[in-house]
């Protein structure tokens, strides 16, 4: 359940568990999901889903003033057997995994020119990851990508975001029956980039979906990783790691909708923050619908605040409409790397900068080890070292 300890000034951690109550996940949103941007009012900032986000830094993505004037260099390295298509917006696979839930996702849907569909055919077991590299070269771009991983296929997909630009996108993951998909999305943007993206995963019967979201860069990053189930027996593991520096806003808003019986979801997001104006937001919503008997779910968010001036808002929410479940729980904690810990480590001869590194490495290590993609693990550990060097 929600726990809090040693919370840094200004940070909040609030959680709720509602049983058989009116759905707050649904009523909190200012408009129901829609593919049409016109169905969403322009946010003013006090709405539940916008209250943590600095609208002024969205570069007009939220109010219709952003126009597609930029370049996003895309490169897709797909192993043999995987097809990559550019399709028109009428394609039936687009939007099948989920519907935009806020104005920016709807704006992205209404504005993209052509969608990309990457297909891993039925029963194909890939030995190499599909690598998607998106490098921003300035300006605003909108995108829509569908990853169609068909029945009993097994794949690892790495989506890498670098460079500068303003990006709004929807990414759909169709995970076929019995398929196994691991997706790593790395947000390693320049510090000036703005990125808002909705990730929709629709998990087939007995399928396994593992998502790893890694956010380091950007001026503002706001992601919506979302999961729902197309049949019973599906499993979702959502892992996240973020390192929020001075003046960065990094927001992860998750929703797992248990709408089929005997499915599992396990969510672990961990973040470290340092520097004045660093702001991390984590919203973890889990909805267990009446039909979802036998659900097993747990979600956790941990934050480690390394310096003064950083702020975390962490809000786990769990709604349960059936009592016939295996388990449901959540935890959120935000703690400081405090002077007493530093003193203890220093009193054992460990210099201050190394002490900080030791603690942060330890904090992330367990999560990094679960990624299972070697070059990504190495890159993350190297990136964490770089971040830490910048801080001391």
């Amino acid at each position, binding site marked *: 359940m929600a726990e809090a300890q040693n919370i840094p000034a200004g940070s909040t951690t609030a959680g709720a568990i509602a049983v058989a109550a009116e759905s707050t996940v649904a009523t909190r949103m200012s408009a129901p999901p829609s593919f049409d941007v016109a169905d969403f009012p322009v946010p003013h900032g006090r709405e539940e889903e916008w209250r943590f986000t600095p609208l002024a830094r969205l570069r007009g993505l939220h109010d219709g003033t952003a126009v597609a004037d930029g370049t996003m260099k895309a490169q897709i390295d797909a192993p043999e057997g995987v097809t990559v298509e550019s399709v028109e917006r009428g394609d039936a696979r687009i939007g099948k995994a989920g519907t935009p839930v806020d104005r920016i996702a709807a704006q992205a849907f209404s504005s993209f020119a052509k969608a990309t569909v990457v297909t891993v055919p039925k029963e194909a077991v890939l030995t190499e990851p599909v690598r998607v590299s998106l490098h921003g070269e300035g300006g605003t771009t909108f995108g829509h990508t569908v990853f169609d991983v068909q029945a009993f296929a097994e794949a690892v997909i790495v989506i890498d975001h670098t460079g500068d630009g303003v990006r709004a996108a929807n990414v759909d993951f169709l995970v076929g029956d019995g398929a196994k998909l691991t997706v790593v999305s790395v947000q390693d943007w320049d510090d000036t980039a703005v990125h808002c993206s909705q990730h929709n995963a629709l998990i087939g019967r007995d399928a396994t979906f593992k998502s790893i979201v890694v956010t380091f860069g950007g001026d503002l990053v706001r992601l919506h990783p979302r999961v729902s189930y197309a049949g019973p027996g599906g499993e979702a593991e959502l892992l996240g790691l973020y390192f929020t520096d001075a003046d960065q806003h990094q927001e992860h808003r998750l929703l797992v909708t248990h709408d089929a019986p005997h499915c599992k979801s396990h969510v672990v997001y961990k973040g470290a923050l340092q520097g004045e104006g660093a702001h991390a937001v984590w919203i973890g919503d889990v909805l267990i619908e009446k039909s979802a008997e036998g659900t097993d779910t747990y979600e956790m968010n941990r934050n480690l605040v390394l310096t003064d001036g950083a702020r975390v808002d962490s809000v786990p929410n769990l709604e349960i409409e059936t009592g016939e479940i295996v388990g449901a729980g959540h935890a959120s904690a935000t703690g400081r790397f405090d002077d007493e810990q530093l003193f*203890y480590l220093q*009193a054992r001869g460990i210099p201050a900068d190394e002490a900080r590194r030791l603690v942060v490495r330890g904090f992330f290590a367990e999560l990094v080890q679960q990624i299972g993609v070697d070059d990504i693990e190495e890159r993350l550990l190297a990136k964490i070292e770089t971040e830490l060097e910048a801080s001391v």
Partner: protein
Amino acid sequence: MATLEIHDLHVSVEAENGAREILKGVDLTVKAGETHAIMGPNGSGKSTLAYSLAGHPKYTITGGTVTLDGEDVLEMSVDERARAGVFLAMQYPVEVPGVSVSNFLRTSATAIRGEAPKLRTWVKEVKSAMEQLQMDPAFAERNVNEGFSGGEKKRHEILQLELLKPKIAILDETDSGLDVDALRIVSEGVNRVRESGEVGTLLITHYTRILRYIKPDFVHVFANGRIAESGGAELADQLEAEGYDKYVKGGATA
């Protein structure tokens, strides 16, 4: 042979109504091979002395000197003091989530020794030290002090003492909260380190109980921020019989 010299040490802390002086002129010399017990009532400044020597940022040195073999300790950062050979076994060791005991010990030993200990000998060294302190090997994989019982925390402190082999060991109420068995095990650990003859020990305690296991060469009574009386081991017996009353009253009327 190492010598710690404390001369006329004055220390204050920031309190609500300004700085408050806690140590009011402490003089003490501790040499390698010697064990000094510092005893005194609660609030007399014993722990302040321990933390000031280790360099805790909460305490401000307002006067006096501390040298280790002639080097100015007060000029050193916390980690420099540790590397120079000052070790503080804490009364309330801090939890460090995410850092395993084995990783912590190795990082610390590397810092103190100036090079990473050879893996093979290191594993043996840690294992045998843990066995002597009757610590479960699974302990090494737990996070530093996280969820440790009071006794486990103290054993972990003494484990570090044994592995880091300081010149000056300051034990801050290591006996507090321990049952008789744990006290004996912890004391045996301290005695193993003392037997080398290469460490000067400053044993800070409220009770005489631990002195049955660790025999001091000198006993100092701490009252009102300074050493009120010094003597041999017999002074502890006197305190056991008479308590701290005469020092507390003396302090109050001074």
